[in-house]
């Protein structure tokens, strides 16, 4: 953006010169992003200043009354910051430890743990919140029941409906991203940097604090920033675990204002704007801290990092890994599976009391959930296909073309990541409603929103794939007499295939589990899984909502297996 605005010259010749250099590969996606991301944000901001008719799509009167009203509800913002910052710190610490254990120690079973630790993220916060409310609810939670019956205590062991509970569940379900991002940096660090530190007389601890940690700082901070933005927009966990305790964060407040009658759109928009400002501040702070640390460029080459024999610490670290897998995967899936087999909302251990009727109900009998499952699969396929196609085209333009404006395109593509998804979706809903064409209430609206919010992720994945393909491989095909189409068919696509498929499945998974971006856009006729689980949780009873959550988890687990297969076959090549 700075490039476009920075020139400042109004000369027509200059503009024409720029236009000639900018190819359709650059301006088409830019126009798409400007419309799909820029316009919703514009609507959000203008509505935040709307002091006229709160129902009006385009404000007629401007003022700051909404922000003044927000002063009475500063606790919403305070709670959001409290939860997001604490959960970010916790998830980042978990991420650092797990990434280090996975990539830098000689502990056994790291390949298996690498897979298991990654799963909670695609399972998603909705499944996590649902499972942990069944595990840790002070009255009926499975863990509390077990604890009370074992010890005879009248007091529950844990209360998940609390601020620490919300922070804990948020952290464990977002931590896999931190493991992935920090782990990638750890794998790419030249271990000679640490070795030389010990040769020059520094012990293990000194080396960790003076060399390893400072070198990892860019990766750690960028993981933390990603988590923070994502947690600011988190909806499922604070709603399902916080509403009982009347604990509101910004996103839950927006949803309440949206649902209340009459809906207070302007105040909700004002909250959204404040959240965006906070995220922007975080991004600014991040770039400030990393200003003089441009050294991530040296991590270009792949090194085989030296693994540390942790000896006496081994059992503790292994226990930590097992504990993480237990609380983020085994217990949640276990309790959901158990609950989905029950005839009533109470949990029974006796198999003769079990039934499969809940699955029959959500899969076949009840049209809303049946439709939601079908729609979600459709959306997953659609987002995967269109999103990856768009991301591949952008990655190709950015990394392979000489067109001017490539950097701008890259920055614009990564921009949606800087906005909490629920806030964006709120603005997007407005845009859809204000359009003259009939888009609101259709799956296309949800699809479009998904493509925009997941574009940064898809782009990141695909540019990783594109840069790995050496340009000379294609050039060799051309020199050998292949035309462009033949080159694509015989060289480029076969090389891209594994990466394309892996990223497609990734996009499919996160679309299937998404709730924040579809909450405002789905409704009668456009039911999708996330919001359906959410509204079912409000009304349907634990056994049925668990069955629906298990269906979603099974879809995700199958996709995880497929990704692993693809990754495995890629490694075998």
């Amino acid at each position, binding site marked *: 953006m700075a490039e476009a605005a920075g020139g400042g010259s109004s000369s027509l010749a200059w503009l024409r010169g720029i236009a000639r250099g900018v190819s359709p590969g650059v301006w088409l996606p830019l126009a798409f992003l400007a419309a799909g991301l820029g316009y919703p944000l514009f609507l959000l901001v203008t509505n935040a200043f709307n002091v006229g008719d709160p129902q009006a799509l385009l404000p007629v009167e401007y003022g700051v009354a909404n922000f003044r009203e927000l002063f009475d509800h500063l606790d919403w913002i305070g709670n959001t910051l409290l939860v997001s910052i604490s959960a970010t710190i916790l998830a980042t610490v978990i991420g650092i430890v797990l990434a280090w254990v996975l990539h830098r120690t000689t502990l056994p079973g790291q390949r298996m743990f690498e897979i298991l630790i990654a799963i909670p993220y695609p399972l998603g916060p909705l499944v996590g919140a649902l499972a942990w409310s069944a595990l840790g609810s002070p009255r009926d939670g499975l863990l509390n029941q077990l604890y009370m019956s074992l010890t005879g205590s009248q007091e529950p062991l844990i209360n998940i409906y609390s601020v620490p509970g919300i922070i804990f569940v948020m952290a464990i379900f977002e931590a896999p991203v931190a493991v992935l991002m920090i782990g990638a940096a750890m794998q790419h660090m030249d271990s*000679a940097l640490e070795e*030389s530190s*010990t*040769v020059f*007389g520094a012990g293990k601890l*000194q080396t960790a604090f003076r*060399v390893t940690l*400072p070198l990892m700082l860019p990766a750690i901070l960028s993981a933390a920033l990603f988590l923070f933005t994502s947690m600011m927009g988190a909806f499922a966990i604070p709603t399902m675990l916080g509403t009982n305790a009347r604990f509101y964060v910004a996103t839950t407040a927006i949803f309440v204002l949206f649902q209340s009658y009459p809906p207070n759109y302007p105040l909700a928009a004002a909250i959204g704007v404040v959240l965006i400002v906070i995220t922007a501040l975080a991004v600014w702070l991040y770039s400030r801290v990393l200003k003089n640390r441009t050294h991530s460029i*040296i991590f270009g080459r792949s090194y085989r990092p030296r693994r540390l024999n942790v000896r006496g610490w081994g059992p503790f670290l292994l226990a930590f890994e097992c504990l993480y897998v237990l609380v983020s995967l085994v217990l949640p899936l276990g309790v959901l599976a158990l609950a989905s087999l029950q005839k009533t909302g109470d949990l029974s251990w006796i198999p003769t009391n079990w039934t499969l009727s809940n699955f029959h109900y959500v899969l076949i009998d009840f049209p809303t959930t049946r439709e939601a499952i079908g729609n979600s699969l459709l959306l997953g396929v659609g987002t995967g296909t269109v999103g990856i196609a768009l991301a591949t085209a952008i990655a190709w333009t950015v990394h392979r073309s000489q067109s001017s404006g490539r950097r701008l395109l890259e920055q614009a593509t990564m921009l949606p990541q800087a906005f909490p998804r629920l806030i964006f979706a709120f603005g997007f809903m407005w845009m859809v409603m204000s359009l003259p064409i009939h888009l609101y209430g259709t799956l296309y609206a949800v699809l479009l929103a998904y493509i925009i919010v997941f574009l940064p992720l898809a782009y990141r994945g695909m540019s990783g794939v594109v840069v790995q393909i050496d340009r000379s491989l294609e050039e060799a095909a051309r020199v050998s007499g292949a035309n462009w189409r033949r080159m694509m068919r015989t060289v480029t696509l076969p090389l891209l295939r594994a990466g394309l498929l892996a990223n497609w499945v990734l996009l499919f998974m996160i679309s299937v589990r998404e709730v924040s971006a579809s909450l405002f856009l789905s409704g009668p006729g456009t039911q999708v899984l996330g919001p359906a689980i959410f509204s079912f949780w409000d009304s349907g009873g634990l056994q049925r909502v668990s069955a629906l959550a298990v269906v979603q988890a099974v879809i995700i687990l199958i996709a995880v297996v497929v990704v692993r297969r693809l990754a495995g076959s890629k490694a075998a090549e």
Partner: protein
Amino acid sequence: MSRVAVENNIASRHLQTPAKAERSFIEVSGLTAAYQAKVVVRDVSFSVAAGEHLSLLGPSGCGKSTTLRCIAGLETPVEGEIVIDSEVVFSSRRRVNIPTEKRRLSMVFQSYAIWPHMTVFENVAYGLRTQGVRDAEVQNEVLRALQMVGMEEFAHRSATALSGGQQQRVALARSYACRPKAILLDEPLSNLDARLRTRMREEMRELQRQFQLSTIYVTHDQEEAMAMSDRVIVMRDGRIEQEGPPLEIYDHPRSRFVADFIGAANIVSGRVRQQGTGQPIILDVEHAAIECAPCADLPRPHADGSYTVAIRAVYAELRRHTDPTTPNCWPATIERRILLGDIVTYVVRWPGGKLRVHGFPNNLFDEGAAVHLHVPSIRAILVDAD
């Protein structure tokens, strides 16, 4: 070695003309190292005298880097003993394994391992600061070390803003500044371009002469090993193949592998003609008989009973005229002339087959020219066959 002797020894290193100690300063004995089940260093023993520059030379995978890393303490050997400055730093028998950071060595890595989050100054000061040296002294020592490599103006630059050659210089300054017992270098020049490599080679040799620190230098480049070392150890498959001063290894390779690996040599095989003791050894190669350099025992023959002789391309001579009584002189024709710039390589057909001969551009022979090939008998070296 007594404590006093050791101290004298260290003190002598700082004199202008130190007497090279006969005693070994680093002693490696029976070293065996493995990665999981794969043994990469087998029963290797050698020593480095105080102030000596020793090179470990060999192709990739020969175990030279692993040997160096064992000395630094970055790898743990399976067996053996390592003594540095009369302190046992590793011994499998006595169960001693002093951690890397307590060995007081310094090392230059192939990737330089310049910490990108520190300035040049902080990089060089690191070793001194871990030793707890006072700030004022650190300041002086670092600037002196940077001056030594001509990098004093860069002291407060970020380490990422440096070129490869500059990083190399900082890595050298860093390893000299911390006053180590010995310097270990792991292929330090392999990431530089050819011209810069030649210059750094000479600069490093100069530093080595000034400081008289014991140095172990790992390289796969024979030129580097030749130009910089007091002594060279050629390694192959985890074992020592030959050990000696550079010229001795060049002139008297013990095996076909060493002759091939160092310099350009012609490898010729033939039958040894039975001769009485005291007589020169004659090797029959096709239609020629070569008189070989005398040796106490015949080397290991090839499986078919033939013996191998190595003739360096620079030691074979081409002459336009010759005295017919000279031994090892044959009529020959120039088949190919390859102009390489500083030298000219001729492929020569002679009664023994084909031979590569190096000449100089000031005295060119044309292709097809009839010449005389002369190989002085002391330059026909019988070597171990493979």
